[in-house]
């Protein structure tokens, strides 16, 4: 056959491309749901909550991250609706005083340092700049855990180190490796 060599070469190439682009995510990432079916949208729309009501700063400027059960219990001491998600949350977490084991999308390797207070208070960056519409999403997307590293696949919709660098360059801000990698 005249094109046999080219066909074989491209067949191998297409197989590898398919495996790399489509197969790898299935093989590499383990998907699991969050422990509570939490809706940022409901909290923002119905309760009028803002991001920093739950994800605030401590007195020393450190970021509180995901709120603890105490924070939730302030409003959810009793059920605030009749949904299955609310009942599950009350029965499994509020009543037995058990902290939900949230899987943090933003958890970074030990050598990565990120200061929320610098970006939010000093840089006046809006939460949406990095977290997109996470604050208005109706459902928490599944947590995709890298089987090799144990870390999240990404922070939110593909945000990666290159996005940090690009934003700093766009803003004309200096940056160096040691800014984040301490």
């Amino acid at each position, binding site marked *: 056959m005249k094109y046999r*060599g080219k066909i*074989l070469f491209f*067949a191998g190439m*297409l197989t590898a491309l398919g495996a*790399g682009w489509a197969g790898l995510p299935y093989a590499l990432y383990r998907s699991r749901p969050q422990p509570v079916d939490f809706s940022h949208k409901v909290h923002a729309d119905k309760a009028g909550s803002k991001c920093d009501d739950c994800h605030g700063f401590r007195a020393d400027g450190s970021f509180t991250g995901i709120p603890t059960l105490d924070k939730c219990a302030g409003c959810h001491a009793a059920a605030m609706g009749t949904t299955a998600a609310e009942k599950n949350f009350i029965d499994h977490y509020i009543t037995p005083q058990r902290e939900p084991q949230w899987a943090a999308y933003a958890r970074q390797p030990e050598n990565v340092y990120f200061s929320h207070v610098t970006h939010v208070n000093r840089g006046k960056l809006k939460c949406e700049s990095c977290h997109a519409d996470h604050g208005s999403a109706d459902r928490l997307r599944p947590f995709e855990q*890298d089987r*090799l590293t144990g870390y999240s696949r990404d922070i939110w919709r593909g945000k990666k180190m290159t996005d940090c660098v690009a934003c700093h360059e766009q803003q004309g801000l200096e940056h160096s490796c040691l800014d984040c990698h301490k």
Partner: protein
Amino acid sequence: MTPTRRNVLLFAGGAAAGTALSPAPWRLITDAALWSENWPGVPAPPRGEIRTRFTNCSLCRAGCAVRARSVGDQPVQLAGVTAHPQSRGALCPFGIAAHHLPFHPVRLREGSVDAARVAISGRVGVLDLRPGRTASWTYRRAMAAMNGIYIAHEPPVAYDLHKARTVLSLGVPLLEGWGTPGNVWAARPNFHLIQAEPMQSRTAALADEWLRIEPGTEEEVVARLASRLEAEGPALVLGHAGSSEETVFAHSEAPVPAAWQNAAALVTRLEQVEDGSLDTLLIDESATDTYLPWYTIAPKLKPNAVVVTFTASRGGYARHARFALPVAVFPEAAEDIPTAIDSPEATFRISTPLAAPPPGMVDPAGFVADLAGLPKSDTLRERADAIHQSGRGTVFTPADGKSLELKSFTADAFWKALTDSATWIDEPGRRKRLPYLSEPTPRPSNVLFSPATPALLSPLMTKLYQESNLQLAPNRVAVNPADAPAGTRGLLQTELGKCAVEITTDPAVPPGAILVGSAPGILDICGPAARAKVVAL
């Protein structure tokens, strides 16, 4: 299609090209790197509650207030306390990295405590390298009980930089860790700095004027500038007499219980100790402000005298001691910090531990108190009560950044505040005029000394010491490029001995001179009159 070798290779070639164009290899390379970070044995701080704690840095007498970010019980970041009236939010590089010290690879972790206790006999002396602490009073009381000698070099003066309009510094590293960094830099805009020394040190580079002088001509410089200092005063002269009355005071110490004062041995300077008079010398290296070269100590000892040093490493007096007993390091040790050289008011603050010391660490004051049979007591609390009884001064609490009159505290509340790292500062009216100050004029020498550094430095300060050479490492010497021998390793030789050093070049060092690091091995052979030379190995 037949699976011939050619066909397989063609398919494999295509697969290799496709793989390179897919994210798989690049993702796996990144993941492999991250995966290796979490291998067993790779150190990682344990996760835990993130909280802020406060302490006071005990690496030097400045005692800067420290705000520590901790994960669980492990401090992971140290910073200054902005509202502190003296340290003003500043920390030196050593202080910022001090939470690394407990993990230092050369840290001393064991010693023969019982054997040392048995070996101690005869006339005992205690060499205190940071006098003015509560531990220092324990030593003094113990030496009085044992008929021993308490040896210390108490700082005679305290300076008020804020009152000075002209500062003449005779080789004193004013801007390189001389006093409390935050206090020095807060006062800096208000005075004209004249730095007089042979080399252009960093202080000289940052001064308003640098006078290049020959070693041994300090007295002439002061005399030459006397009229100018008087006209542009109040003046402060560092390293020599000649300061205005408004800028220099007698060193003050926080009140101590009267019972301690009545039962304390006198303070004896090392040169006042009779040669060959000590059977045992106990050296407290757990907190040091100075290093006394061994050649000044050795003559005071009898032949076969027992030397016991309380130390965190083997680099100091442990080289000469029969027993080196391990001690806690900052931020593990609970101890008070004496008044800083740039604080005319007496202060009292406790370095509250941020981490637990490893087992087997020795409390030097407790060890000496046991030897003397002093009753066990909480000496820091007794000192705090004595200060409280004085009823004067203010108390700064770092958690809320407020200063309140001491009178508004009960004794228990004052103690609680101190253990939460508050600072007591005496009232300004208690300043004592200095009757007379004399500083010995250094003799001519080609040896220049770099600013002293703590005995243990964070091993991660490689940018300062190894890569950028911003600060002369303790085991290094710097020479003018014209004098540089071949190679980077050599021998520093003086009439007192020789030691191996690393050689670096610095055009700021005058030709013929040698700038030496502050390692004890180097200081032991560089006396004030020494002439030194460096030869390549």
